[in-house]
């Protein structure tokens, strides 16, 4: 790893080698990734408004800068300068902490995601990576529940409760839909999962059902339309963040978009071949990219970014297309359709793997 940037590495000469390898490099990569993600998140909000405008045959924001392109700078500035209101009767400490809670796991997860060919673009490669990602994303719900509760507002509390029920329910198909992929690749390491796909085919083909369930569950996990019940404007004013304004609101917003990004990255890695464009080991594989040097690595990153961008747009597309579910329909969909379907998918995958293995003998 330090061989790729010997000059920078020499700066850390006085620090013991394992410290450089395990602490310093990941930190630098994380800071860079953090900055990029903040930018992407802000930019996504602009894209969302423009795309929605296009879909609804209107213009969307177009005043700040050419084609409204600077809107993504103006929005955070507005939120930063806004008055910070704490409602009377709020649970002060909890109200204050709540917006920070979802941010932490959302950004920690980025440490575990490889954005491009390893080792340069993978901050870490943990052998239980996928499980850790699941674990971290599942803690994102606390901010929402706590925010809803601490606001001392009925609508907020309802939003928080809905969110808790929804996220716990969809956690199950979310996890189960991945099991098929794990069975095919035999590893929890994301790099390894991508590697298996470039040697065979993208998992989306053998795991079409799993991919579909994952897509639905990931949309529900981040409370996006058509599953945006926790913040349903027409029913709950704005749900759990009704009472939040200014930077605190911005934090919730940031966490939601960061989670969207995480999930988009995950679906690309798990089902769509990550940064590779290869079938059966032919095409742009990780190895090809690594031998091409910086050009290849950047190419891998760009391919990855393009795939992720598609799924980010897909989220927005969903929002522009589907009407919102009713809460009982949401639960029914999760428990009566998604979970059984995911279980059937696992069983079928297992049987097919066994048949192929024994039949190939």
């Amino acid at each position, binding site marked *: 790893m330090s061989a790729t940037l010997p000059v920078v590495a020499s700066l850390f000469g006085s620090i013991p080698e394992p410290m450089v390898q395990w602490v310093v490099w990941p930190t630098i990569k994380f800071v860079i990734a953090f900055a990029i993600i903040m930018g992407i998140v802000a930019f996504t909000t602009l894209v969302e408004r423009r795309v929605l405008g296009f879909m609804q045959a209107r213009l969307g924001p177009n005043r700040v800068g050419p084609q409204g392109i600077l809107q993504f700078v103006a929005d955070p500035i507005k939120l930063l300068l806004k008055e910070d209101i704490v409602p009377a009767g709020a649970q002060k400490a909890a109200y204050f902490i709540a917006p920070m809670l979802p941010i932490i796991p959302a950004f920690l997860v980025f440490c575990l995601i490889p954005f491009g060919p390893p080792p340069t673009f993978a901050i870490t490669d943990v052998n239980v990576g996928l499980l850790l990602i699941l*674990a971290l994303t599942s803690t994102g719900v606390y901010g929402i529940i706590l925010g809803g509760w601490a606001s001392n507002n009925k609508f907020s509390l309802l939003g928080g409760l809905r969110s*808790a029920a929804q996220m716990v329910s969809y956690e199950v198909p979310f996890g189960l839909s991945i099991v098929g992929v794990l069975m095919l690749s035999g590893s929890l390491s994301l790099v390894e999962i991508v590697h298996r796909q470039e040697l065979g085919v993208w998992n989306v083909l053998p795991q079409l059902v799993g991919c579909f369930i994952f897509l639905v569950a990931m949309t529900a996990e981040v409370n996006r339309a058509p599953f945006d019940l926790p913040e349903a404007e027409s029913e709950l004013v704005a749900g759990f963040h009704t009472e939040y304004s200014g930077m605190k609101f911005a934090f919730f917003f940031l966490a939601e978009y960061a989670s969207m990004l995480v999930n988009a990255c995950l679906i690309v890695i798990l089902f769509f071949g990550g940064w590779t464009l290869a079938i059966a080991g032919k095409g742009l594989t990780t190895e090809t990219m690594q031998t091409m040097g910086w050009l290849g690595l950047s190419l891998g990153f760009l391919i990855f970014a393009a795939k992720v961008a598609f799924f980010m747009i897909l989220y927005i597309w969903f929002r522009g297309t589907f009407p919102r579910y009713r809460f009982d329909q949401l639960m029914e969909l999760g428990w009566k359709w998604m979970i059984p379907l995911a279980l059937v998918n696992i069983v079928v995958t297992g049987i097919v793997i066994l048949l192929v293995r024994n039949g190939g003998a």
Partner: protein
Amino acid sequence: MTDPLMLTGVSLALFVIVGAIAVASSILVVSMRNPVHSALFLLLTFLCVAILFVSMGAEFVGAVQVLVYAGGIMVLFLFVVMLINVKALPKEKVFTATSMMGVLMGVLLFIILAIILASGTWAPAVNAPENLRTAVVVKTTPVVDAGGATIQTETVTRDVVGNAEAVGMALYRDYLVPFEVASLFLLVAMVGAIVIGKRELDASEEEAIPEFIAKKVSDEDRLKEVTGA
């Protein structure tokens, strides 16, 4: 192994800090009046314990600890505390005279346990710590036999693999039946939670349910009804 957590200084600092947070927050769990605060400190304790698991080389269990406790159980706790609206609970006196007995017993228990456990007598280690990552690995390799036909041969070895693989092999080979029993009691829990938690509606409440929900009218029919088409 180049695990950074094996570095003495780092791991010592990690243990002291994380352990201190765990103890402090668990004291707060049992002393906070508001169950929501208790639940949040319990969550913190769980996360600290998960970090300690990872520091002991059981990263798979650590991840599962976060997933199960933080992602599932504590959300459920908070959900219920909020559902039955915690503010309606009467103020609970935490340290009354009778509860001092409990404190005394807890402290006494700790002293006994600490004296005994500090002496550090336990069974001789059966293996080196790497054994947490060792599993029986069955590899099938095609071998061409004398007649020219390809046959699969199985080789069974004990390899050092990841913690996840080792745990998986043990769970599905040695502990298969208890694992199945675990699925049974999870089923029982699910059925039981529904049986106990579901409220039977009485007659007046049943009337209050809109027809389209009670009768499960499909959305298309409802649309027709609303639009009059």
